[in-house]
């Protein structure tokens, strides 16, 4: 066995020698100027350049940056391989160290889009930063390279403002990846989960599931990097981009590009150019959860239209809800109209400016549904009247001739607030008809007269028998044209008044003067009219029309005081004192006893004298016949 002490000495000696050799060797390397200090002694000169392919390249390396970089511990030659200090340039082959010779555990990088990109593009060359710092400035470093227009928009996007970086979507680091269309929703959904879920309920999502390649994802509407949030831009970049494309949405049906294109000339479409308040696609269709109208959940489904339109047109919708249309609508009646029934869908026009809502044309809108409808009560001639009878009316005729004062449907029925006549609130309820017909611009004089009349008195007392405008003039087919046929007019008028005034029931119920029609018809006036003479007094000639009053009223045309004037229109000789008995003598005995006496007397004379004559002559005839026979025999 070798003694322990000697062994230790040997080991020491050898170690010393090796160390010495190593140290000397080391000194040799340093002395051969391969250390970083030596490199920097030249390269710290800011003006150090070289020329390559005619370009000046700066060869400056900031020692401070280098020394504070994470690579401070490494030597230049660790990266700059094949270095030869004596040659300039130092290496013929500018061969850089593969970063992975040291960093050999970079997982997934080969899958990254940056696989072929030099590490230093991100990590920089000499002032290699710690990962932490790179992360912090990731976006900036991405944008250093990614300078295309689209991506540059990112800097001004809402994401940029809210510090959402590239890596938040693209993962970043060595895993940085492109985002395929399929992944977009998930990527966005990481933050925008609610919208993602909403989107999953949309028609867009449904068709995407069905394999439609054109179905949009988040970025199709919001853009990828500029991230649109303004409604107007989303719609024009997003919705309209596809929905105006006739290749994607052919035809002319609902849903076609042509159909959607109507929006551009709609009042919504026109207004929004200057005013982003006007309804755009999403205002009606909803945004992420957009659905076809046949889906009950859709904002454009019939059942939800009031809610949708009412977002902006609140007052109008409230009126509508109370209307007959509205109450039916709320009952989910199939027949009930909704906003779009009258106003259209994409082609919604201004009711004030558009021809479609001109007074003449609006009629067609209403008649689209009401063409065959009947007015629920018979008219003054006891006939059923069609709603479309309006087409024969003076009102419509005047309208067609361009008289814009003439009323169309809405003047009398109201537009959104239209109501059945039996609703007391309705513009056409019995109590309101006069106000409706007499609205400003219309029949104000007639209204004023009518409001003084005994007929109106009845109306104000809720008397169901009392007539108002339409009771006499009819409803839709109002034809009080200035008729040339005076006689027909006169006869119609008499028939009209007789409708009520010779109805026994009605006369009794209201304690009206009796037999006015009969007595008129038997009077010379009545006989003449019946005989076809137009220039003779009818009801209106004496009683007036709208302001009809009972004879007891001193301002009545048939008050005794006024009779001379009234009758004097035709009979010059008329004077107050001359009216000594009733005109409509319904009860001769009471009202005109002289006539009664004369009539009785003549009855007796006629029956007596003529009776006697008949008897006398029958006997005479028999006698003479008999004698003739005897004489002949």
């Amino acid at each position: 066995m070798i003694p322990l002490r000697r062994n230790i000495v040997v080991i020491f000696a050898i170690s010393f020698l090796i160390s010495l050799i190593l140290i000397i060797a080391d000194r040799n390397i340093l002395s051969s100027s391969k250390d970083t200090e030596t490199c920097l002694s030249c390269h710290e000169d800011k003006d150090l350049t070289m020329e390559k392919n005619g370009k000046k390249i700066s060869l400056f390396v900031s020692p401070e940056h280098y020394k504070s970089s994470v690579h401070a511990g490494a030597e230049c030659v660790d990266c700059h391989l094949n270095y030869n200090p004596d040659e300039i340039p130092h290496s013929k082959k500018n061969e850089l160290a593969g970063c992975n010779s040291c960093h050999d555990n970079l997982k997934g990088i080969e899958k990254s889009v940056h696989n072929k990109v030099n590490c230093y593009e991100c990590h920089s060359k000499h002032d290699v930063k710690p990962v932490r710092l790179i992360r912090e400035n990731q976006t900036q470093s991405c944008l250093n390279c990614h300078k295309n227009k689209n991506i540059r928009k990112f800097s001004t996007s809402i994401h940029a403002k809210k510090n959402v970086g590239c890596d938040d979507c693209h993962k970043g680091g060595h895993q940085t990846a492109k985002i395929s269309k399929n992944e977009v929703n998930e990527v966005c959904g990481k933050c925008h989960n609610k919208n993602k879920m909403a989107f999953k309920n949309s028609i867009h999502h449904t068709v995407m599931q069905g394999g439609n390649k054109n179905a949009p994802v988040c970025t199709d509407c919001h853009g990828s990097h500029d991230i649109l949030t303004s409604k107007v831009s989303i719609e024009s970049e997003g919705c309209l981009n596809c929905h105006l494309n006739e290749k994607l949405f052919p035809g002319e049906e609902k849903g076609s590009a042509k159909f959607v294109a109507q929006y551009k000339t709609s009042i919504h479409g026109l207004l929004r150019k200057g005013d982003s308040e006007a309804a755009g696609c999403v205002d009606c269709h909803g945004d992420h959860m957009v659905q076809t109208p046949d889906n009950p959940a859709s904002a454009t489904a019939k059942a939800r239209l009031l809610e949708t339109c009412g977002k902006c047109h609140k007052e109008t919708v409230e009126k509508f809800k109370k209307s007959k249309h509205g109450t039916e609508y709320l009952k989910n009646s199939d027949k009930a109209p909704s906003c779009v029934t009258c106003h259209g869908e994409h082609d919604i026009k201004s009711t004030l400016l558009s021809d479609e809502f001109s007074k003449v044309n609006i009629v067609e809108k209403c008649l689209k549904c009401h063409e065959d409808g009947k007015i629920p009560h018979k008219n003054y001639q006891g006939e059923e009247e069609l709603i479309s009878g309006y087409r024969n009316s003076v009102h419509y005729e005047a309208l067609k001739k361009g008289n814009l004062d003439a009323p169309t449907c809405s003047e009398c029925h109201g537009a959104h607030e239209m109501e059945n006549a039996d609703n007391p609130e309705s513009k056409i309820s019995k109590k309101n008809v006069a106000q409706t017909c007499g609205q400003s611009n219309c029949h104000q004089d007639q209204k004023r007269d009518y409001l003084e009349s005994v007929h109106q008195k009845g109306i104000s007392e809720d008397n169901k028998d009392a007539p108002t405008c339409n009771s006499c003039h009819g409803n839709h087919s109002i034809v009080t044209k200035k008729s040339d046929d005076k006689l027909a007019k006169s006869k119609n008028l008499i028939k009209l008044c007789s409708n009520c005034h010779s109805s026994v029931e009605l006369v009794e119920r209201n304690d009206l003067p009796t037999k006015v029609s009969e007595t008129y018809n038997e009077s010379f006036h009545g006989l003449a009219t019946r005989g076809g003479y137009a220039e003779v007094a009818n009801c209106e000639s004496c009683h007036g029309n709208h302001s009809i009053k009972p004879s007891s009223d001193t301002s009545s045309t048939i008050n005794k005081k006024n009779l001379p004037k009234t009758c004097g229109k035709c009979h010059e000789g008329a004077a107050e004192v001359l009216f000594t008995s009733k005109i409509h003598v319904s009860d001769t005995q009471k009202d005109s006893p002289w006539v009664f006496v004369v009539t009785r007397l003549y009855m007796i004379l006629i029956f007596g004298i003529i009776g006697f004559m008949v008897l006398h002559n029958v006997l005479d005839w028999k006698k003479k016949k008999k004698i003739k026979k005897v004489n002949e025999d």
Partner: protein
Amino acid sequence: MKTEDKYLRMSANERVQHFLLLSSFIVLVITGFALKFPESFWVKGIAAVIGQNTFEARGIVHRIASVVLVMVSLYHVYYLFFTVRGKQLFKDFLPNRQDVTDFMNSMKYLIGKSDTKPLFGRFSYIEKMEYWAVVWGTFIMGITGVILWFENFFLKYVTNTGMDISSAIHYYEAILASLAIVVWHFYFIFLNPDVYPMNKAWLKGYLTREQMEHEHPLELETSEKQNTDNIKENLSEKAKDETETKNIAVSETDPDINKQ
């Protein structure tokens, strides 16, 4: 027919008067009742022919006819008082006691209480009734008609009550007059078996001897007596006898009574 002898009944003048009277009267009846019954078939028929202005035309024609009637009536009054024949006519038309007896006897005869028919002179009670009825009627219709015509003027005097009365009288008198003419006058002129089918006196002016014998035996008697007086005064008594015989021969007796 016993004889073709002609006995003058209506002179040409009278026939013209009668014709104007009857035509204006008939026109008045038609145009008058046309007002009252505008919906009746005959008025509609007329209207269909005349057309639109039927009613006005009716009024105008009624007034024209009424003027004719009134003029004829006024002439007739003149005729009665200023012509020889008219004076006689008026005298013969005046009712007298004999008419009452005639009427009573006639009634008795007609109901079978008596078997002799009273013998009538120039105008029987029947014709006198006819005549005075027309006089009365024309008077009433004229007055009330004029009131109705000039209503503006008369209203001042008669008030609306007066107008109503006038119109009532005018109407009922029209009925009475029309019925009287039809039942009374037309019977005796057309249906009366003695003259059937028509008494042509209003056209030709004369009656046949047979008609005279039936209707106006006393007149016939006087006229024949006059004739005889004139031609053969001395034969007057014989002629009278003959007439009497004749009267007896044609005296109309009730066959029923004869049988008894």
